[in-house]
């Protein structure tokens, strides 16, 4: 993912232009999606990131065709997913943020009924095998763990061998092992040519899986590109603690920004190696031991946090934002 070039120059499978979604009307209304543009190529894995209430799920629902947009245009496989639902649905698979399977049916009964509503469904055993639920066929859905329920949801989304797969927070609630397995599965699907659009809270997940990503905030796409592109231009970071008596002041460290909090020092630099060399040379020369020394390149997490706080500062939090239905209930849960 070093190149900034779009790795999939093929025809766009998902095209979104100036998308708007408004709930309710007047002063009580809430403008959840405010002019989103996206394009996802065939076989590409695209991740939508954002804080809670950023409009990820609202955007997903419009692209999935579950609701009509207030404004703008959506095309999935060349069709309007809302108006031409019957054409689009057989070719896509959708996994919502939460369940939606009756608790009193078993896994197999749930699968059978979904297979009856899915064109050209793969054999149920195969779908359950894919997500590792074969041994749980006869268990009632209400007795499944949260992670198992997520996997059942994924299996149902995969039942029709979809060309385009929509995953809304697919690994939330999964233990690390199950998460790794889901990642493996998603990567394989992508390798077979499935186009995937996913939302996630886990920046690690986006870093691992996504060919490209978009970071949303306040209903808009704030930044988009490959992980490398999003990180590019973000400073690296060095942190350390000075001993009580140094007898020498820090060197100038050209191009870097130094912030001191008591003895704790944070250095932000666009040139990690040069700044670090200079710093370590200085410490060596003055025989100073730098405590808790940590140097890291810009990560998606740092870029994300910086972008989110920048956007929060400059983006005018529009008048009707505080009435967001489920917004801001939790803060974003970071993976690390």
């Amino acid at each position, binding site marked *: 993912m070093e190149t900034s070039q779009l790795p999939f120059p093929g025809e766009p499978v998902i095209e979104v232009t100036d998308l708007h979604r408004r709930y309710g009307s007047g002063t009580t209304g809430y403008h959840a999606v405010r002019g989103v543009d996206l394009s996802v190529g065939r076989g590409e894995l695209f991740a939508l990131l954002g804080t809670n209430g950023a409009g990820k799920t609202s955007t997903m629902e419009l692209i999935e065709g579950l609701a009509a947009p207030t404004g703008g245009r959506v095309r999935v496989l060349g069709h309007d997913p809302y108006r031409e*639902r019957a054409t689009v649905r057989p070719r896509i698979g959708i996994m919502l943020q939460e*369940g939606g399977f009756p608790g009193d049916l078993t896994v197999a009964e749930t699968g059978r009924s979904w297979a009856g*509503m899915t064109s050209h469904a793969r054999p149920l055993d195969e779908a359950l095998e894919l997500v590792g639920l074969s041994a749980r066929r006869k268990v009632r859905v209400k007795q499944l763990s949260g992670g198992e329920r997520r996997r059942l949801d994924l299996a149902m989304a995969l039942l029709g061998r979809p060309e385009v797969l929509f995953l809304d927070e697919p690994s939330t609630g999964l233990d690390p092992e199950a998460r790794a397995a889901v990642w493996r599965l998603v990567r394989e699907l992508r390798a077979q040519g499935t186009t995937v659009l996913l939302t996630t809270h886990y920046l690690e997940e986006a870093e691992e899986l996504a060919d490209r990503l978009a970071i949303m905030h306040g209903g808009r796409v704030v930044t988009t590109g490959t992980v490398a592109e999003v990180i590019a231009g973000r400073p690296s970071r060095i942190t350390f603690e000075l001993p009580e008596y140094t007898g020498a002041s820090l060197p100038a460290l050209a191009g870097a920004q130094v912030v001191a909090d008591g003895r704790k020092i944070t250095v932000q630099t666009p040139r990690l190696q040069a700044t670090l060399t200079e710093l370590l040379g200085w410490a060596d020369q003055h025989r100073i031991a730098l405590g808790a020394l940590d140097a890291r390149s810009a990560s998606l997490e740092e870029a994300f946090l910086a972008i989110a706080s920048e956007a929060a500062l400059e983006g005018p939090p529009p008048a009707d934002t505080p009435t967001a239905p489920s917004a801001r209930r939790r803060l974003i849960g970071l993976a690390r």
Partner: protein
Amino acid sequence: MTTAVVSSAPSGPRSTATRRLLALGRAEAVLLLRNRTALFTALLLPVLLVFGLKNVLDQQAKDNPGLDVDSLLVNGAVGMVLAFVVYYNLTAAYVARRGELVLKRLRTGEARDAEILAGTAVPSVGLALLMCTVIGVAGASVLDLTAPVNPLLLAVGLVLVVGTLMALAAISSAFTRTVESAGITTMPVLLLTQFGSGLFFPLEVMPDRVADVCRLLPTTPAFQLVRVGWFGTDGSAAPTGFAGSWAAAAPHLVTGSVWLALAVWGAVRYFRWEPRR
């Protein structure tokens, strides 16, 4: 998890409306069988009510000699079964599926909205019609009732009843938060059908003005059609044959169709696919 993403296994057939209805109906039937409360309401409650109905009708027969208690009993029992098994049961089912986000999930698939609502109703409607058949056969053999005068009209009446009750269930579910509260929110329609649509109190024993108002209630015309179809009269005139029954049924056909259309409009307008947050 294995790595059989690409498989050579054959895939299933194309999904059709019929297959989707059957798949949904089958799952819903399993759920009905596993839900004791719903089963009780569907199977036992109507039977208990039929005994109550018999007493009420016998009482009225004392004051109104010539009241055809047997035919009214069969007609009332059919109505009761439909009201509880289709309307009440289905309201609770819609509320339960909405609460579990099942309806929302189903909408992500290939099924159309109307198919989802109809599929959920398959076992309720099937069970109700089965019970009606049992009542009809029992009535014919035990009570020596005549065969239906106009089976076509009877069928049209049943379709109108079932359609109107399904749409009313969809509307009621919109105003019902939990399955438990369905007992209260379904009360108005249930009372109206039992006491105002000629089931417990035949329209012919009511004062004329009251009967006229009751004839205009949502479920009255459809129930009266069933009665005309079977017995050739809604009680306001002497029984007629096949040809004459059409004339007796005409006003009910009109009002019944209007109510069905209104109920369907209301269902489309008010039905909620997701719980309020």
